């Protein structure tokens, strides 16, 4: 039932979240909203890394495009809230398409370096345009929750609802895209671009498309992030955000969307854990440095020992025990005596 109708799973999950949100205090609700934002960002990276084989270390820059675009639309055109998100997605997608045009020609380390450079240089780019407000940034205020929701409906709960609604829709849509013709093409391109090209897949076009979609989702995450902080500024989208998203994607496992919650919850939980440890030993050094240490250590350990993520690991184990595994797409092409195959 759930396998056949994934939309029921999503709606069910949303309903549970709705029940939970009524029982949590403000801080937890805010963290819950952050989890949703990370989930969208990580999902967009999984699409990029796991499905099209491109790596972006500067996704924070694309989030920033979304955040700034939404804020500008709100300030200058007084756009309704839902429209600001649409504008954020479109603006980031256009930015992503431009970047993707350059990226499609690049392989691994070049793309990683270019996107990293973009994320590092973001503040200096933002400072160039006075409309973006320099270091202080610009406010992004979506206003109070509608009065019809009652008196004790807080601002953060409103954010929580918006974020999760957006996340569920985005992830459901992403899941469908990944299972579509495009998803299969991307997987083929990632595994072996020569074989994919021989099978009639336009490699460059597919890479640009993947980058564009990923950027659009990142833009949505950026607009949501700017919304929860009420601000779009270089400080909201630091280099650390890009690194966190990459970390989250690796922790979740880049080959399936199934683990996306693992990464996003971990990213939110680690500072909490570090804070708890720091409170116990009462040291400020620990509070500031432990989160970074934990995240980095976890990242390295994951890459070393569970490189394809926990979900994929489970699938592999089950496949070993003789259960039917989920079948990867395979394309092989023979030309003369030579065979190209997407199967490793």
């Amino acid at each position, binding site marked *: 039932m759930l396998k056949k109708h994934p939309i029921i799973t999503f709606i069910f999950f949303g309903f549970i979240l709705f029940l939970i949100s009524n029982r949590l205090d403000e801080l937890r609700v805010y963290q819950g909203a952050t989890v949703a934002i990370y989930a969208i960002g990580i999902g967009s990276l999984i699409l990029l890394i*796991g499905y099209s084989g491109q790596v972006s270390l500067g996704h924070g820059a694309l989030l920033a495009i979304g955040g700034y675009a939404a804020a500008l639309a709100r300030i200058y055109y007084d756009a309704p809230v839902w429209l600001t998100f649409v504008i954020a997605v479109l603006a980031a997608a256009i930015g992503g398409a431009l970047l993707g045009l350059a990226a499609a020609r*690049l392989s691994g380390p070049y793309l990683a370096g270019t996107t*990293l450079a973009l994320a590092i240089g973001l503040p200096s780019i933002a400072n*160039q345009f006075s409309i973006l407000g320099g270091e202080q940034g610009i406010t992004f205020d979506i206003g109070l929750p509608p009065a019809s929701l009652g008196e004790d409906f807080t601002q953060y709960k409103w954010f929580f609802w918006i974020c999760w609604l957006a996340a569920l829709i985005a992830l459901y849509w992403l899941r469908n895209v990944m299972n579509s013709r495009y998803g299969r093409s991307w997987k083929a391109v990632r595994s072996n671009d020569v074989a994919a090209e021989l099978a009639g897949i336009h490699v460059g076009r597919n890479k640009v498309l993947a980058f564009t979609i990923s950027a659009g989702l990142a833009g949505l995450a950026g607009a949501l992030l700017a919304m929860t902080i009420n601000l779009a500024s270089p400080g909201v989208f630091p280099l650390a955000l890009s690194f966190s998203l990459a970390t989250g994607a690796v922790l979740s496992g880049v080959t399936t969307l199934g683990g996306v919650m693992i990464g996003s919850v971990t990213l939110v939980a680690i500072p909490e854990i570090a804070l708890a440890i720091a409170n116990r030993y009462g040291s400020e*050094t620990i509070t500031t440095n432990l989160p*970074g240490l934990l995240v980095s250590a976890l990242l390295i350990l994951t*890459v*070393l020992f569970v*490189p394809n993520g926990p979900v994929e690991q489970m699938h592999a184990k089950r496949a070993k025990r003789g259960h039917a595994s989920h079948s990867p797409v395979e394309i092989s092409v023979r030309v003369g005596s030579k065979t190209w195959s997407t199967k490793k």
Partner: protein
Amino acid sequence: MNQFLDMVLIGISAASIYSLMAISMVLVWRSTRVVNFAQAGMALLSAYIGYELVARVGNFWIALPLAMILGAAFSAFIEFVLMRTLQKHSTQGAIAAIAPIIATLGLLGLIRATIGFIWGHGDVQLEAPLSKVGFKFGETTIIMNPMSLFVLLFVITLMIIVSIIFQKTNIGLALRASAYAPEIAQLAGIRVSGIRTLGWAIAGAAGAAAGILQTVNGTGSLTPESLEFSLLLVFGFIAAVIGGLESLPGAVLGALILGLVLAAVQIYISGALVFIVAFLLLLLVLILRPQGFLGSKAGRRA
């Protein structure tokens, strides 16, 4: 005319440090096919170690080579522990191509957090050992000063040493052979894995020198989240890409081009545009000549 001279001097002096960074990235790339994004963190760590050594030994001229040796040892250690394990484990699936990149990213975070634990997040000052007052010729003061002259000469000396190692010695031959054709090199009796570690070690020394010289030649202050070092990483990467990521002379050439272009932007247009111009230069090179100016076409494929 005076402005032009300033531009050339600023450009060359910046280029000398970029080229060290670029060389260390090229060496790592050649030996293990990894672009080491942790290089900035390693350079930063070396700068902190240099600061600690200056504080304990009291002499910059002893601290500099010592920090370079420690940087080399640390870099070799990373290759030995992290990269070799990685090669054993992450070889399958979507992650295989990007695992090394992710691992160096994790390393960067680890190094920064460790620095934060040891030295805290406040500013740490590494004082320049030489005067930073420009030389005088008659009435005019030029922008070159004893410190930046030393940096320039030191980097040139390092370059000469590295190129002698690479061109004239057996170790250099082994380094080139294992980068060019690892399997054939192995058949010829070269211990490729050991040579890889050596490549990382030389890169670590160059990176350490870059970190320390950048600090003393610049503001002298160090913080774990130093933007200066992130920019150093980016500029080193851009210089390496301009040169083709494969070639050591290419890295130096790339650094010179980048240094001069950025100096021209800084002097004739505006200092605020430096990063944007550097980024556009990177995109331009990648779109027009992705194999770089001195690299081979085959080198582009990871």
